[in-house]
């Protein structure tokens, strides 16, 4: 076990993937000498060469489009999108090509591509650098959408994503890049939790709190604070946003009878809506209160001096938890 930052966990995971399979490639803007703006690919070009760690022209559609071509040729590209807000120029290639090629070909074509996207706010950035577009990809059949929340999961989930034969949209909680956790870099993937499974991060009995990515830490803090007040929150890190691990979720809600889901993306038509609708349908007679959602407002991401008001925090989460008890 080593203590690594989340960024380093990804770096080590990518290194393993590059070592284990010569078909794995890294591509994106500034991923070479610079090592990416968050240093996730630090040192990889030096060690694996420019043919495998590719600094690309400044064009996201080009990154995903050529990655598709490389995958058709048998490669397994891992594309870095520099920031969440810059995935949109690649949206067409992702939604109409990447997601659909297997289906279009009746299973004759596989596109084992990972699109890494640092997402979310909380770093005091300018516009377009704090978006949470996961619901857009989750609504697109044919993609897998995952989000890691700590260094250990980052290390295993990135490797699992690279080995997946499905395209994976891999969200990285950018404000947690420098958070440290123990990582077993020597351990293999054999015993690891599959990347399409949710994880009960903290067990609890009174209410189920669903979260992913950057808000897992916030949720854990909320659970700790609530415990001090005598309320037992079960925190589930969803990890996989599409498909959703409904088994783990509904088992918890059937037990607790209450559910809050939180994400940074706007609540309106966000992923929390799907979770609330699905949980309600599957746990209708177990629910003591409606599933409540704590997320972004129906506004563009605000200037960073206001982001603390926009982002769900411990207080807003506990406020919603309280409301499920007062329903």
């Amino acid at each position: 076990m080593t203590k690594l930052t989340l960024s380093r966990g990804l770096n080590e995971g990518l290194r393993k993937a590059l070592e284990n399979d010569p078909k794995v490639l890294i591509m994106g803007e500034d991923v070479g000498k610079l090592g990416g703006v968050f240093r996730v690919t630090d040192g990889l070009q030096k060690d694996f060469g420019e043919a495998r760690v590719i600094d690309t022209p400044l064009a996201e559609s080009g990154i995903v489009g050529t990655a598709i071509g490389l995958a058709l040729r048998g490669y397994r590209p891992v594309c870095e999108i520099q920031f969440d807000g810059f995935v949109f120029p690649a949206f067409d290639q992702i939604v109409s090509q990447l997601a659909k090629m297997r289906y279009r070909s009746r299973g004759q074509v596989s596109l084992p591509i990972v699109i890494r996207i640092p997402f979310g706010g909380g770093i005091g950035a300018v516009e377009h650098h704090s978006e949470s577009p996961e619901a857009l990809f989750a609504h697109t059949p044919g993609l897998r959408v995952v989000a890691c929340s700590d260094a250990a999961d980052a290390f295993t989930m990135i490797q699992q994503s690279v080995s997946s034969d499905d395209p994976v949209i891999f969200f990285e909680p950018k404000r947690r890049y420098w958070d440290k956790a123990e990582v077993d870099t020597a351990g293999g993937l054999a015993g690891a939790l599959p990347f399409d499974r949710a994880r009960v991060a903290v067990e609890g009995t009174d209410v189920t709190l669903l979260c992913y990515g950057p808000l897992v830490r916030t949720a854990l803090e909320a659970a700790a604070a609530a415990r001090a007040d005598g309320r037992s929150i079960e925190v589930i890190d969803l990890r996989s946003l599409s498909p959703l691990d409904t088994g783990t979720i509904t088992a918890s809600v059937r037990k607790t009878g209450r559910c809050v889901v939180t994400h940074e993306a706007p609540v309106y038509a966000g992923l929390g809506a799907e979770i609330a609708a699905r949980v309600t349908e599957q746990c209708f007679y177990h629910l003591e209160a409606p599933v409540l959602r704590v997320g972004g407002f129906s506004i563009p991401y605000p200037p960073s001096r206001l982001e603390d008001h926009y982002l769900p925090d411990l207080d807003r989460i506990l406020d919603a938890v309280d409301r499920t008890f007062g329903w």
Partner: protein
Amino acid sequence: MTVEPGIAPAAATANREPSSQPEEGLIQLLTPEGELIGHPDYPLDLTTDDIKDLYRDLVLVRRIDTEAIALQRQGELGIWASLLGQEAAQIGSGRALAPDDMVFPTYREHGVAWCRGIDPVKLLELYRGVSHGGWAPEEHKFSLYTIVIGAQTLHATGYAMGIQRDGRETSEAVIVYFGDGATSQGDVNEAFVWAPVFNAPVVFFCQNNQWAISEPMEKQSRVPLYQRARGFGFPGLRVDGNDVLACYAVTKKAMQAAREGQGPTLIEAYTYRMGAHTTTDDPTRYRLASELEMWKLRDPIERVRAYLARGGLAGPEFFAEVEAEAKQTGARVREACRTMADPPPLAMFDHVHAEPTAILRQEREQYAAYLESFEGPENGPANEEAAR
């Protein structure tokens, strides 16, 4: 160019007779009259038998096309995108490829598909709505049809980068097809950025058929398209797209250059869409009949026929034989289309992911149960396994 206040300059060219005179500098080996003129940069390495084979290809793909249009009229196909007029561009370039070269087509490359050994019936599957494209791309070295304009140019460039990484540059190259309209898309221009930067072994084959549905060339560019490449740092050239020999020679040379590490080439095949954009289109709304008449004089098949007949290189029995084969192929395609079964309903749940997800499995099961709630087993099998 001065402009009337309030009127966009585009208006000035809007009612022009589309310029149908191929430019000076257009590469041509066989004139519309069937005269073999040759070109110093493109010595022809084809025997008479080869040219007869090309003629056969041209006639056969036109027949398949005619048949498909008829099938659409009869309600057997949802839609069809005709290649009428573009046979030479497609057969010439398609026959210039080596077996290991990879092809990325649009939705209109039926002639190239033919050269790659794709059964035309497979193409019909797509236009009938039975599949989105069901062949194995690697088996034929022919990717699936791409409908989103321009998207495949990036796939081709990436594939060519893969060839480089495999260390196979001297034996394989890639060709990607697209139209005149496609040159306006961001993706195509990004491919023009990437290919020279990585020196990727890819040939961009643009069939300039003068129209993007109802929009003439002038809505996409005010200079000839082949000139676009130079500004991105790679060569572009314009070939008579109705001259199968020139298309063959130019493509062969460009593919060879790609294989030799000389990077990409843009080929603009100057041709004409003689039919409607698709069977749902009505070109009388936007173009003059006279234009079509003029292009009929440059028909890509007639000139080969004239060349072969005039020189006595082929006799009436040859032409009759080809005609008979065309008829037979047409009949086979028609029959296969008419008897093509719909896929079983539950097949729609297949091949979304490498392994179906739990949610999808559940949706499939629920829908199967729902179907069974109405249908007795006599109403036919609901999934592919049962259908076999």
